[in-house]
């Protein structure tokens, strides 16, 4: 087993991307993800890669579009307001079926908001972020180790399905330091015969494009894309279950909220309350199966979020609203404490007994 190194979450993402074969990074300064860019600025020139600070988030995502068109692994990273600016590019990447890795180290919003951790871009990430019918694969790390692992995984999935993978982290994940192992099994990127790398006068020209003016054709393109999304839903959904088997009260939480919730679950168990936790690792595709199983025995669900209640809608959908689903949250850069989550578990548990 390889040695572990102590790293910040943002740095772990950058190093993992390089290990995954990414040699092109474009970004624009914004807190709290700036360490990704700083790391790339230092590393890329030394390994024959390209770090370029773009004039805007819009330019950065379009530079990503260019490198991806040319068939190479490429990434950008930002925080919430910057991701909004990238929304146009995310839609074009989807419309042109281009792979890319995009990192969102979320901060509180809306508008300029704050610079402290948040999960309030859940809707934006899981519903696409830009215009049109499309999805991104949304990966939610809950440790520095996962920041690295999901980055590698994100590149693989992006190439495999010709989609954008988004790492949906938060300021806590980006800034905190933990020991991390960077020993990954790196698969070579697949062949990309569609890439615009020059015809060499040996083939018909390739076109990377999202324009389709004939309605029947555009409809067909959308249908085909959603067939691919269906495969992603069937094959790539990831989650962690913690003490869910016999749970009366099941918490749904991802990222930092899941770590806090795990403590609360442990404490609840000590007090004799059968609590459990489902932690979605892919937010899109949302892991419906563990919720469908849990709703058969759970009295209630609690969605613990750093938002005004966004994932709770997916929890309600996945449980078909068969039992109550309540929200336990903090926003604006605040993080729920284990005590707050425990209090919520006790209240919901008592309510269920009555």
């Amino acid at each position, binding site marked *: 087993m390889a040695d572990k190194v102590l790293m910040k979450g943002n740095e772990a993402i950058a190093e993992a991307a390089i290990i995954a074969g990414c040699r*092109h990074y*474009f970004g624009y300064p914004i807190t709290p993800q700036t360490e990704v860019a700083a790391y790339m600025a230092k590393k890329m020139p030394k390994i024959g890669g*390209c770090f*370029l600070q*773009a*004039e*805007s988030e*819009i*330019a*950065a995502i*379009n*530079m*990503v*579009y*260019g*490198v*991806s*068109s*040319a*068939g*190479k692994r*490429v990434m950008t990273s930002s925080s919430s307001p910057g991701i909004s600016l990238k929304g*146009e*590019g995310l839609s*074009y990447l989807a419309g*042109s079926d281009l792979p890319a890795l995009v990192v969102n180290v979320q901060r509180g919003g809306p508008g300029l908001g704050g610079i402290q951790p948040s999960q309030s871009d859940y809707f934006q990430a899981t519903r696409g972020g830009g215009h049109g019918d499309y999805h991104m694969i949304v990966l939610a790390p809950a440790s520095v180790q996962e920041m690295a692992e999901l980055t590698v995984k994100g590149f693989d999935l992006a190439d495999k399905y010709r989609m954008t993978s988004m790492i949906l982290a938060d300021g806590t994940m980006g800034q905190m330091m933990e020991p991390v192992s960077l020993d990954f099994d790196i698969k070579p990127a697949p062949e990309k015969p569609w890439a*615009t*790398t*020059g*015809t*060499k*006068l*040996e083939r018909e*020209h*390739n*076109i*990377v*494009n*999202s*324009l389709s003016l004939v309605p029947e054709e555009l409809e067909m393109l959308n249908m085909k894309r959603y067939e691919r999304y269906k495969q992603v839903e069937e094959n790539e959904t990831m989650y962690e279950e913690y003490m869910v088997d016999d749970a009366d009260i099941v918490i749904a939480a991802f990222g930092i909220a899941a770590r806090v919730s795990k403590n609360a679950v442990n404490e609840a168990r000590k007090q004799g309350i059968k609590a459990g936790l489902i932690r979605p690792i892919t937010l899109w595709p949302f892991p419906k199966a563990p919720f469908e199983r849990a709703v058969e025995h759970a009295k209630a669900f609690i969605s613990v979020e750093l938002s005004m209640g966004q994932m709770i809608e997916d929890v309600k959908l996945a449980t078909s609203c068969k039992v109550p689903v309540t929200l336990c949250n903090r926003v604006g850069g605040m993080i729920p404490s284990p005590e707050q989550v425990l209090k919520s578990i006790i209240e919901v548990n008592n309510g269920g007994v009555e």
Partner: protein
Amino acid sequence: MVVFDKPHALIDVPLHYCPGCTHGIIHRLVAEVIDELGIEGKTIGIAPVGCSVMAYNYFNCDMIEAAHGRAPAVATGVKRADPENHIVFTYQGDGDLASIGMAETVHAAARNENITVIFINNAIYGMTGGQMAPTSLPGQVTQTSPYGRDTKHCGFPIKVCEMLSELEGPEYLERVTVNSVKNIRTAKKAIKKAFQNQIDGKGFSLVEVISSCPTNWGMTPQAALKWIDDKMIPYYPLGVYKDRSAEKEAE
């Protein structure tokens, strides 16, 4: 003996452009240059949003369709993906390059990004039906300036070559037009130089081509070509605005 042939870099399909539009001439010039420089197999073109949005159907090289105004950023990515083996050009109109994509234009120029930009300035948004462009002349009647462009209300046209020439970055900036055989020949020389500069690693080369839009100017093709002489060129003088290599040689 072949005295006239279609360039290999241009696909033999009907173009969608309006009768009398100069896009056809400029497409041909770009394709002739690609043929003459023998670079079709390594060239990647970036089409804009606007009248030439479907240029990807006309050029025989690999093509990418970019979001509105973002072609220089996309070109930056393609070029940086493989600087040694990619020849990259963008083909952009005035709304694309000088309005919504101005930031991308200026910064690609400031970085001296080693790409070739073909900039079509016809002082109007053609594809959407003739709205006021960043380059529409003072007093010019368009769909969104029906009483003529009032500079007190919506400001003045942007002279792209003049503006970019103030930057240290760009290698080469020239304004040409294609309303006569003589001018077409000059335009081709400029386009060829803009590609040769990229091959030689010299950097950002932009050729602004003053073009006509008979449909949205509401003129016959002949009258539109004359309007270029009478109205456009006095406001947008032709010539070389920057040629860093030539300046260095002159020193």
